């Protein structure tokens, strides 16, 4: 019961009181008795197990439901990724469910594309429009002219649709705009990409080295849990970051490196390990090839050499290398996640992978573990669709980016600009990813969009990409829908359930429903023989005799334990061509790339400018959560971090230096201007770069809280440097200068 002060006084004055308020002796002047323990009663009448969708880690959650409303979300103790604990975003999922700005009805565009003027229509009308548009594109350009961009669990259904439709062009910005270089480098070196969640044994590491990763601010739940666990057990932390990150604040060694010079440092670390015999010679002799070539390659890469490049003290380079070496084999070089920085990123990640090998850390406790998927059968279904007749079109003509091991979202965008690729893409389905913030070089993205014959956006909120769509389809949130079960590879294989805690609000629909209805309208119903997501999952489980009831009630089924490291009896095997760890990469040599990583200087910015770096807040998942009122309270807008001493001497601001919290406009090397953003003057960053959290500065008016709040690093990323090995779009190659924001009335 909630009662306002005013209401209470009225009742009290009437002298009636109520059973709960006044009962007997011991009263004070209010006529009240006792001090009952206040109980907000948010445990709910029932608890529904599911998994989270606030980011893509997939933690197990328990949704507490009271009188049809989700009151709170807690971690599922049975789930291996959350282990009963949640990050703030996971705990703040109700802020998404009850976001007043949610998409409520299907929308059809009613003006020029991008003018964000829409009309509410029925699902039948909206899907009819999509079907009509798709059929037209298919007739004129073939089924492959449709691309799907997807990020999130409901994307599974749309991928099924693409398969039935006959297009191979399915991509996500999470590869070429995020973890791609890492995947390519670890595949080259160890024969296996890492994927998500990464199979890292942080908890048992004696030393953890972060290179540009700001774990703790980057809030991948299990990894942060394990980092704290490791620190609690006395593990040491080495952090390489131009910014004094939260992790740096806990580090034994913080290396405030000059941005873009990491490869020099990594080579110097290899040099010290090899020169001082700190490497695992027996492990390398048994499992690696190319050690002699590596030794020769780093012979002159001394800490003194690297110091001149990185701006780091040579003693710091040597001491940190010695700590890293002395902690082996449980000395974990974290592979990072967002690794598209300078266009030589696969080579930097290769240099990291080489260190992993030198430390004998791959396949060992406290290192890179073996992981596996929970065995889950496919849905039994006859007539699989025929394979597409044309190969996917994410690589430009001429076979560039030969070692990309996933689809390039940037390549799909480029193929939508006529004549750029082997054939043109003419229609996009965009599921749950706001390409406007995810992709660099916004004019290029918008040019591609304007060339399309059809753009369909499926989302929960009116994200910026929805404003550019022809048809907008409102999906139910993860708390209101069933989805496919989740069986990502983990060191203890498991499967997790996604089930609705409450019915969909408004006229939103689950992804499976949208796809099934759409398939019916384009004559593909036969490919979707299941009745709904629940039946789909139940039937898949039944094939192997697995229990839906157990999965549904606990949220998780655990597979049998597997040996995850050499100490547990897992043999060290490598799926490279040689069957060994390839320190020297013949594959790269054959393609005319450096077979061992080489440091090459990055271009500097114009005088008076700062290199723009970006990262994350633990409260937010890119731009996806900016409109979440609950998460916004502790972190309402991003700021641009600027070294306080640099600010004091900033050219053009001599008369009146920038003040703490003052609003500034950032202008990049191409004249692109940010929206006004607060400046954070701090000692916690080098004086040659600035930093901001990614995802702000959004332009969609429908997200009333997020609109115009903070500034967008993506907008200022008008240039990229493309990794020639795998096509990643290196983004840390933009430079900004400061202007004072002009106050407007």
């Amino acid at each position, binding site marked *: 019961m909630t009662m306002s002060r005013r209401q209470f006084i009225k009742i009290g004055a009437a002298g009636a009181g109520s059973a709960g308020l006044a009962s007997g002796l011991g009263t*004070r002047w209010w006529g*009240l008795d006792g001090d009952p323990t206040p109980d*907000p009663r948010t445990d709910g009448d029932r608890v529904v197990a599911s998994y989270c969708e606030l980011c893509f880690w997939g933690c197990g959650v328990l949704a507490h439901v009271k009188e049809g409303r989700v009151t709170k979300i807690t*971690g599922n103790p049975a789930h291996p990724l959350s282990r009963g*604990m949640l990050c703030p975003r996971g705990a703040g999922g109700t802020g998404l469910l009850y976001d007043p700005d949610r998409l409520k009805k299907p929308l059809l565009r009613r003006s020029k594309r991008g003018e964000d003027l829409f009309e509410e229509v029925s699902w039948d009308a909206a899907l009819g429009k999509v079907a009509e548009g798709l059929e037209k594109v298919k007739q004129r350009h073939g089924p492959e002219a449709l691309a799907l961009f997807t990020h999130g669990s409901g994307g599974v259904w749309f991928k099924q649709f693409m398969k039935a439709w006959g297009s191979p062009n399915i991509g996500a910005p999470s590869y070429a705009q995020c973890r791609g270089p890492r995947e390519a480098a670890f595949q080259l070196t160890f024969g296996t990409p890492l994927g998500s969640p990464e199979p890292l044994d942080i908890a048992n590491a004696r030393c953890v080295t972060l290179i540009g990763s700001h774990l703790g601010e980057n809030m991948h739940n299990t990894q*942060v849990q394990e980092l*704290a666990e490791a620190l609690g057990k006395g593990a040491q932390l080495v952090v390489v970051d131009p910014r004094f990150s939260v992790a*740096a604040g806990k580090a034994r060694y913080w290396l405030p490196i000059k941005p873009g010079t990491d490869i020099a440092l990594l080579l110097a670390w290899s040099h010290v390990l090899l020169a001082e015999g700190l490497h695992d010679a027996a492990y390398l002799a048994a499992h690696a090839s190319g050690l002699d070539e590596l030794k020769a390659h780093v012979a002159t890469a001394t800490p003194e050499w690297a110091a001149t490049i990185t701006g780091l003290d040579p003693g710091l380079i040597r001491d940190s290398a010695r700590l890293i070496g002395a902690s082996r084999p449980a000395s974990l070089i974290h592979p990072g996640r967002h690794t598209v920085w300078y266009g030589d990123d696969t080579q930097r990640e290769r240099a990291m992978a080489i260190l992993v090998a030198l430390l004998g850390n791959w396949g060992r406790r406290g290192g890179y573990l073996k992981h596996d998927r929970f065995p889950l059968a496919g849905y039994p279904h006859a007539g699989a669709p025929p394979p597409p007749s044309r190969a996917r079109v994410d690589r430009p003509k001429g076979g560039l980016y030969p070692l990309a091991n996933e689809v390039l979202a940037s390549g799909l965008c480029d193929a939508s600009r006529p004549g750029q690729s082997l054939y043109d893409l003419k229609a996009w389905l965009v599921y749950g990813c706001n390409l406007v913030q995810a992709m660099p070089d916004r004019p290029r993205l918008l040019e591609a969009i304007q060339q399309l014959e059809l753009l369909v956006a499926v989302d929960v909120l009116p994200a910026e990409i929805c404003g550019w769509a022809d048809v907008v389809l409102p999906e139910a949130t993860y708390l209101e829908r069933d989805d496919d079960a989740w069986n990502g590879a983990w060191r203890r294989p498991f499967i997790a359930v996604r089930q609705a805690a409450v019915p969909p609000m408004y006229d939103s629909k689950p992804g499976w429903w949208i796809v099934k209805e759409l398939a019916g309208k384009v004559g593909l119903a036969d490919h979707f023989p299941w009745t709904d997501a629940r039946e789909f999952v139940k039937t898949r489980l039944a094939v192997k005799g697995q229990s839906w009831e157990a999965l549904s009630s606990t949220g998780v089924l655990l597979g049998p334990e597997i040996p995850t490291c050499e100490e547990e009896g897992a043999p060290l095997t490598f799926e490279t061509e040689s069957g060994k760890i390839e320190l020297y990469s013949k594959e790269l040599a054959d393609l005319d790339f450096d077979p061992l990583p080489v440091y090459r200087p990055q271009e500097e910015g114009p005088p008076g400018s700062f290199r723009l770096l970006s990262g994350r807040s633990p409260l937010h998942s890119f731009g996806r959560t900016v409109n979440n009122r609950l998460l916004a309270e502790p972190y309402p807008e991003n700021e641009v971090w600027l070294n306080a001493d640099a600010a004091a001497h900033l050219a053009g601001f001599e008369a009146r230096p920038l003040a703490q919290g003052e609003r500034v406009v950032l202008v990049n090397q191409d004249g692109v201007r940010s929206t006004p953003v607060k400046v954070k003057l701090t000692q916690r960053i080098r004086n040659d770069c600035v930093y901001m959290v990614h995802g702000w500065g959004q332009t969609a008016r429908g997200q009333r809280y997020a609109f115009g709040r903070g500034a967008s690093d993506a907008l200022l990323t008008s240039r990229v440097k493309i990794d020639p090995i795998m096509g990643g779009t290196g983004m840390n190659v933009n430079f900004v200068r400061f202007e004072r924001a002009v106050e407007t009335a």
Partner: protein
Amino acid sequence: MTRRYAMAVDTRRCVGCNACVISCKTENDLPSGGFRDWIVQEVHGQFPSLTLQIRSERCNHCAETPCVAACPTGASHVAAGGTVLVNRRKCTGCKACMVACPYGARWVHPDGHVDKCTFCLHRVERGQPPACVETCPTRSLTFGDLADPASPVARLVARRPHLVLQPEAGTRPQVFFLT
């Protein structure tokens, strides 16, 4: 033995993610703008010689309670285990307790009463930890009975160097920051 509820906050583990803040808000159904716990990041030094301490702060549930002494209506009171609570039905929102509290731990709820951390006593009485403790991904927060020397919180406070906030205020805080 009288119980003495206390909390240890491990500043070495805490990353300041705010999971404690958000879970507190939903557990206790707090209105927009109201917080019973919050994160403080304290930076010292000059680049590149810097230190950072991160603290998840809340009411210190002090053993000496100027807030209770200041309350004219008896709304602020000491409950089980020394937990400092506000009986919202007795509270007039006069803010005397807010002035008396050296920690800024109290705020006025839109319903008119003063609000603050309860150590989730409603959960504790059911044998559950406070919501912030339960969700904390770094296991930085340890809640328990300081009077029981075998309790995890008592052992941490006995074993680890720690500080309390503004000891000079003489309030004998029962939230201990392990350093």
